[in-house]
């Protein structure tokens, strides 16, 4: 179809091309058409294009002149159709015919040129293809050649003995020196033969060695069996020797076992274990250290320590991501789990038993919080006697308060590790104080004993690890023992105070006159809130001497109608920090240490001049002695009070105490100081 249409179009073109000349020829030449066409083609070969161009120019010029002449004629008034004009029109027609012919010729010349170019192009294409094929063949051949050149024989990898050694070592039937000396190929073959021979020999040797090894192993096995059969016998001997060990008080085995377990302790507990053991052996026979807890779990924990660490951080990161992904849903359960994970204790813990002189024992349980890297302690006091008699003493031996403020301001409520703050923020723990009940208190001294050091703003010499622990061990143990003893002493004192008896030991008798009329009426605990609400304790509170960690008590002493209330702040570090009394007297109206100078003097008598009242060291009787002095002071206060002469009747409190002067100084103080042995009262 397409070719057909192409043909049609070609014919059409031919026809349209030749249309006008055919018609003209038809008109002009009639039957000589075929010859004319042929002659024109032929004529084309014979004509010079250059000349055609000149001819074309000439006819154009002639045309122009003819036109001009016609116009001139017309302008001069010649009529249309006159002969001159007609003749010129004829001439111009001839010129037109000439132009047409020239045009035709030009077209034919163009077509021929195109055909010739096309032919030449096709020829070039064929040649190019041939060239391509040849090039490809060359390349292939080159590749083959290089492949051949690169061929490697297997023997090149084999490490052969050097040529000299070969000629020396190999027998002549293999080396064949005649043949090989000159031919490297034969030489290589011979050397390979020799190599094979040698290898065969070595393989033989290897087999033999294996056999001997087998034999030796068998004999070792037999010997091991023999040794194993010895074990039960030895165990029996060990068992039998235990009573002897105990008898000689040399607990080898026990310590050995403990050290075995101690290997699984986390580093801080291990430091504490070693240091406490060392201290116990060196200085303090009443210190006993033991490890409690699940050893297997600890083993499992300690085996892949780095892995678990990584997991930790990974999971943390994941948690973070999760958090950022979806903030809202199921926070409660997840956070709880995370918190629990964060506050996890190491499965092993240390138990320190500190025996005091009066056979009471302080049990300290040290724990290590793995993820927070801090240590905590819980405590328990066990005594030989029953102590449940005093109600007000309940606070004294409680785990929360027993060890509070062992060192100044060490309340053990907040974590000492500053890094924990960020960990807490992540899981939404507001304060570590909410967890101390369950986990124990992270006192600073506990960290020190475990060799953990957290830098604070106060610059100090930095020691870590064992040396830190060792430097704190002795003082801490002494403090602990002192603390327990003071608490037990207080306990006893409280028991008698509750029964309105002020015990005064014989060593302290000289501090007080023989006759004290004022009696203790009541002794109760009060809360911090109740204490701060009292009007006559404001100065103590505002001076910052009443802290929440302190214990608060209310003592009431009475004589006749006079009733003296004493609000007492008892520091956990008693007796190192003495109890602080604030007084309020209700007798003829209310007065307190704030408004009455004499009551203020009584306060300072018990608070400031406490050193006289300490009794035998370490001053456990301070509190009761303070109370005894308070009673004496109240006696003096009441007996020396000015008697209003206008009131009838006898004095309520007759003067019994011997006083040099009843008042002194500008603020008219009463003589509160008792002088032994003369037995009179004087002023400070």
């Amino acid at each position: 179809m397409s070719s057909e249409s192409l043909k049609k179009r070609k014919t059409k073109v031919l026809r349209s091309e030749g249309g006008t000349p055919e018609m003209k020829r038809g008109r002009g030449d009639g039957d000589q058409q075929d010859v004319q066409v042929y002659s024109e083609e032929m004529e084309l070969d014979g004509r010079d294009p250059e000349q055609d161009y000149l001819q074309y120019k000439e006819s154009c010029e002639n045309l122009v002149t003819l036109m001009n002449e016609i116009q001139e004629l017309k302008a001069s008034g010649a009529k249309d159709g006159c002969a001159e004009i007609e003749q010129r029109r004829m001439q111009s027609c001839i010129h037109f015919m000439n132009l047409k012919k020239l045009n035709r010729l030009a077209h034919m010349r163009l077509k021929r040129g195109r055909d010739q170019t096309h032919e030449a192009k096709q020829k070039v294409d064929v040649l190019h293809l041939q060239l391509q094929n040849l090039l490809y063949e060359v390349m292939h051949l080159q590749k083959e050649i290089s492949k051949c050149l690169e061929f490697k024989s297997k023997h090149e990898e084999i490490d052969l003995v050097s040529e000299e050694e070969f000629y020396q070592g190999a027998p002549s039937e293999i080396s064949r020196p005649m043949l090989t000396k000159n031919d490297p190929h034969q030489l290589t073959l011979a050397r390979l033969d020799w190599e094979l021979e040698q290898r065969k020999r070595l393989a033989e040797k290897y087999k033999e060695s294996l056999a001997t090894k087998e034999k030796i192993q068998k004999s070792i096995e037999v010997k091991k069996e023999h040794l194993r059969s010895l074990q039960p016998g030895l165990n029996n001997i060990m068992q039998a020797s235990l009573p002897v060990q105990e008898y000689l008080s040399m607990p080898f085995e026990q310590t050995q076992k403990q050290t075995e377990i101690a290997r699984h302790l986390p580093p801080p507990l291990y430091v504490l274990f070693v240091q406490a053991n060392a201290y116990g052996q060196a200085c303090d026979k009443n210190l006993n250290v033991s490890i409690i807890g699940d050893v297997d779990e600890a083993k499992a924990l300690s085996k892949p320590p780095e892995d678990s660490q990584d997991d930790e951080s990974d999971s943390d990161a994941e948690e973070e991501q999760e958090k950022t992904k979806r903030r809202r849903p199921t926070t409660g359960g997840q956070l709880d789990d995370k918190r629990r994970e964060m506050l996890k204790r190491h499965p092993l813990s240390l138990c320190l038993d500190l025996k005091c002189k009066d056979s009471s024992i302080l049990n300290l349980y040290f724990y290590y919080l793995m993820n927070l890297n801090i240590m905590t302690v819980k405590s328990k006091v066990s005594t030989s006697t029953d102590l449940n008699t005093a109600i007000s003493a309940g606070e004294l031996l409680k785990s929360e308060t027993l060890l509070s403020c062992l060192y100044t301001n060490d309340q053990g409520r907040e974590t000492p590790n500053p890094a924990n703050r960020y960990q807490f923020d992540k899981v939404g723990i507001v304060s570590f104080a909410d967890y101390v009940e369950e986990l124990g208190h992270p006192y600073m001294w506990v960290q020190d004993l475990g060799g953990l050091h957290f830098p604070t703003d106060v610059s100090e010499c930095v020691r870590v690890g064992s040396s830190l622990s060792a430097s704190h061990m002795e003082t801490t143990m002494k403090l602990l023992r002192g603390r327990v003893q003071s608490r037990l002493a207080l306990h006893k004192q409280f028991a008698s105070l509750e029964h309105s008896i002020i015990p005064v030991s014989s060593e302290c008798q000289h501090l007080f006159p023989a006759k004290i009329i004022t009696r203790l009426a009541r002794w109760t605990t009060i809360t911090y809130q109740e204490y701060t609400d009292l009007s006559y304790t404001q100065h103590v509170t505002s001076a910052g001497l009443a802290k929440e960690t302190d214990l608060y008590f209310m003592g009431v002493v009475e004589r006749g109608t006079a009733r003296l209330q004493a609000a007492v702040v008892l520091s956990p570090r008693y007796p190192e920090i003495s109890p602080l009394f604030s007084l309020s007297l209700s007798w003829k109206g209310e007065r307190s240490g704030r408004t009455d100078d004499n009551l203020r003097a009584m306060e300072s008598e018990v608070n400031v001049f406490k050193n006289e009242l300490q009794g035998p060291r370490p001053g456990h009787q301070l509190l009761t002695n303070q109370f005894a002095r308070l009673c004496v002071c109240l006696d003096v206060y009441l007996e020396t009070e000015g008697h209003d002469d206008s009131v009838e009747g006898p004095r309520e409190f007759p003067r019994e105490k011997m006083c040099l002067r009843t008042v002194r100084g500008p603020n008219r103080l009463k003589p509160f100081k008792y002088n032994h042995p003369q037995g009179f009262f004087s002023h400070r």
Partner: protein
Amino acid sequence: MGPVELLHMSVFSQSFSPCGRFLAAGNNYGEIALFSLSAALSPDSTVLSQKPVLTFTAHEGPIFSLLSTDCHLLSAGNGEISAWSWTELIKKNVKPLWTKRPNYKSSLEIPEINSMVINAKDNSLVVGGGDNNIHILDLEHGVFKSVLQGHSDYIHCVSVREREAEILSGGEDGAVRIWDSRTGQSVHCIEVYKYESCARPQYGKWISCVTTDSDWMLCGGGPSMSLWHLRSLSPTSIFPLTGCQRQATFYQDMILAVGEGPFVSHCLLGGEVKAEIPCTPQSLNTMQLNTNSTEHRVLTVGGSSNHIDVFTNLSYRAFSLSF
């Protein structure tokens, strides 16, 4: 000094240095503290400048009286008087120039010295204290030249009437005695508690403050504080102040008084209480006006606290110095 000791501290006496730039204060522990007023009053003062520049233990017992002469600070402790050079103290050299003890009759207890005053006329020091007697120390020769006997109980306060060469003393026995300083004789004895308008039996009869100005005397204590006309020896106005007054002074046309209660009372001569200005200590022992220097013209009061309140203006407390 621990916090408990600070809590139970009382300030008993004060004295300004002759230059008026320093204040010495004595407390119940026998310590004297020197405060720099110029530092505390400067515009760029800090908490630190309200602390003493020097604190030293001067005596064993409480220091009930401090007094400044032209160049010395006199301090009275338990039965002894010490003199300190102001110039040395300012240089922080703590060494008494001398220490003197009045001739006491032997006693189990050393009597305290409650009050001292300079009698400029014959350059002597009038000392009243626990042995019921007034001792007069000749400052020129450094000897106790006479003893005025008459009170039946210890002496709270002494005062000098320079023009008349008279010494006034008030004591625990409730009497104000007027002595002739030349003869050493008791000229008058006013037993204030016997005047019904002044008596307050619920408190007692002692007189703890006496001060004079020309013909007028101000005294208070157990009885109400009262203004007396000395020529007629009669009370002219009684001040309705609660509590016992420990120190009173004339100031311009007013009377300032301190005592029990946490305030400085401003009274008019007529007998009305004009104002009671609150201050820090619960009861006040001492009050001093600094007249030695115009630029540091302040009123300071001390009492049962370790704070000394400073008034730059009489009508309100500016700040507190503290031990």
